[in-house]
């Protein structure tokens, strides 16, 4: 077994060697600018981009012309929200999104609010999934966009895109999904799900960092966007800037591989993930699963370990790369907004760990990590005054704590 063990696949993934091989020629020999229309170097680059666009479009049931390349999902989300808000300002000023979205959606929505738009942040149910009736009730005649993520980056919960799409379509509202954690991991079909805008990126599926895409529907309805960047008018005027040809080639190869291996990988990861969960839960009491038990990404497990703070747990397991929803991992001192939105108490949010499994996770690693979690939590609980108080039968909720 190689150390450290990487178990943070929702943060990013290592690039697959097959992806790197596909990219390499486009850094050196085939370095042309895809916008150079008058020579072979440009043609070669354009050809590669066209082929990649085709692959990406097919992966989500779209047409090649509907794919706009960006620098990543953050840019795609910004472009979708700001582009729609500006272009459709005469139609309405209301946007609906969800409390558990990624900051690249939430912070963009907050900026729209400062610019005079109205934003509704839907609550989620305790399992992390939105309530469709609440969504229906939130739509007004001013609503121009609904933005709901495909799968959550922290808790892996998968939203009912098809049902949301149907509601959006019935009410004539555009529907955007941040499918950063979705494409290549779960089925995404822009027509079956009535999607008008889809953000996705390469580095979450074993492709390179710095390349992403936004699907923009061309018909029924034709979606128009105000661009974020002014310039040469690339990407149908929606995203100026010389195309990142090696990145685009790698992105397409990564998507191809993810789709070809998706079903087998889903089975393998689900089995490994469930094994990790069962082995940890059989060795410890007071462990809580965050998010829906089944409607979640196969490679995601998010657990809260009562009486133990998340950062100290990661420090105790420093040979394993993990993430925590604890505030101590950020400068803000606020624990994960996603867990708080589920109604998880602050103390359990501080005690959460995200285990992200992926293509190169082995059975041996899962076993090692499970054992390590059990021993680490046991040691830290011995050190925890909360565990001691709970064992004495003190209800921690009734204690008057000194806030600081």
């Amino acid at each position: 077994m190689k150390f450290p063990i990487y178990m943070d696949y929702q943060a990013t993934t290592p690039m697959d060697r097959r992806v790197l091989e596909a990219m390499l020629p486009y850094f050196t020999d085939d370095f042309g600018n895809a916008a150079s229309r008058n020579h072979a170097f440009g043609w070669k680059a354009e050809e590669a981009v066209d082929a990649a666009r085709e692959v990406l479009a097919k992966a989500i049931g779209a047409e090649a012309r509907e794919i706009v390349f960006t620098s990543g999902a953050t840019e795609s989300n910004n472009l979708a929200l700001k582009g729609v808000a500006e272009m459709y300002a005469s139609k309405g000023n209301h946007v609906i999104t969800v409390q558990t979205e990624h900051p690249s959606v939430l912070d963009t929505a907050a900026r729209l609010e400062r610019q005079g738009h109205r934003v509704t942040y839907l609550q989620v149910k305790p399992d992390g999934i939105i309530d469709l009736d609440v969504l229906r009730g939130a739509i007004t005649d001013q609503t121009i966009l609904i933005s709901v993520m495909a799968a959550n980056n922290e808790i892996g919960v998968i939203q009912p895109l098809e049902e949301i799409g149907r509601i959006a379509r019935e009410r004539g509202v555009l529907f955007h999904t941040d499918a950063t954690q979705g494409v290549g991991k779960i089925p995404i079909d822009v027509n079956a799900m009535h999607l008008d805008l889809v953000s996705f990126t390469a580095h979450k599926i074993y492709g390179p960092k710095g390349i992403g895409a936004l699907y923009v529907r061309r018909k029924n309805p034709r979606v128009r966007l105000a661009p974020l960047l002014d310039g040469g008018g690339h990407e149908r005027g929606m995203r100026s800037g010389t195309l990142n040809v090696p990145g685009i080639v790698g992105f397409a190869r990564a998507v191809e591989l993810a789709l070809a291996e998706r079903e087998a990988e889903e089975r393998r990861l689900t089995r490994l993930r469930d094994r990790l969960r069962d082995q940890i839960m059989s060795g410890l009491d007071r462990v809580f699963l965050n998010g829906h038990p089944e409607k979640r990404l196969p490679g995601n497990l998010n657990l809260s370990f009562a009486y133990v703070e998340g950062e100290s747990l990661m420090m105790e397991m420093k040979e394993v790369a993990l993430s925590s929803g604890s505030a101590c991992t950020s400068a803000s001192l606020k624990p994960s907004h996603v867990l708080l939105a589920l109604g998880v108490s602050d103390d359990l949010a501080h005690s959460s760990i995200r285990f992200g499994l992926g293509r190169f996770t082995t059975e041996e690693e899962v076993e090692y990590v499970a054992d390590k979690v059990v021993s680490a939590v046991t040691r830290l609980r011995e050190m925890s005054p909360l565990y001691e108080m709970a064992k004495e039968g003190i209800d921690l909720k009734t204690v008057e704590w000194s806030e600081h």
Partner: protein
Amino acid sequence: MAYSEKVIDHFQNPRNMGSLDKNDKAVGTGIVGAPECGDVMKLQLKIGPTGVIEDAKFKTFGCGSAIASSSLATEWVKGKTIGEAMQIKNTDIVNELSLPPVKIHCSVLAEDALKAALADYLKKNANGTPVEENEKAKEGVQ
């Protein structure tokens, strides 16, 4: 964030981790912080008849820096008088452990826990204890 070697050492080999009998009159207990803030420290001091801290124990729910801060505090107070222990400042802990700005609150909590434990002891032993004599003696020296 990278931890200093001293933080890692205290985290891996905590000094004086454990509990003292909180019902013992010679033991002062301080519990500070809140679970919803992500850190709770319990610091206990056993103080001898001459007002010298004979033993100190801690238990901490919190990040590595919080655990290290409380571990260091217990190490420092042992053998000190109440008056001397009162002089320990959070900045001493920050310097010793090289805590970054986002972790300064861990040191503040350790100082608060120490003060709370001393206050608890003084409250328990309010009437005519050797402590007061010790304090008077100390003032005399100054």
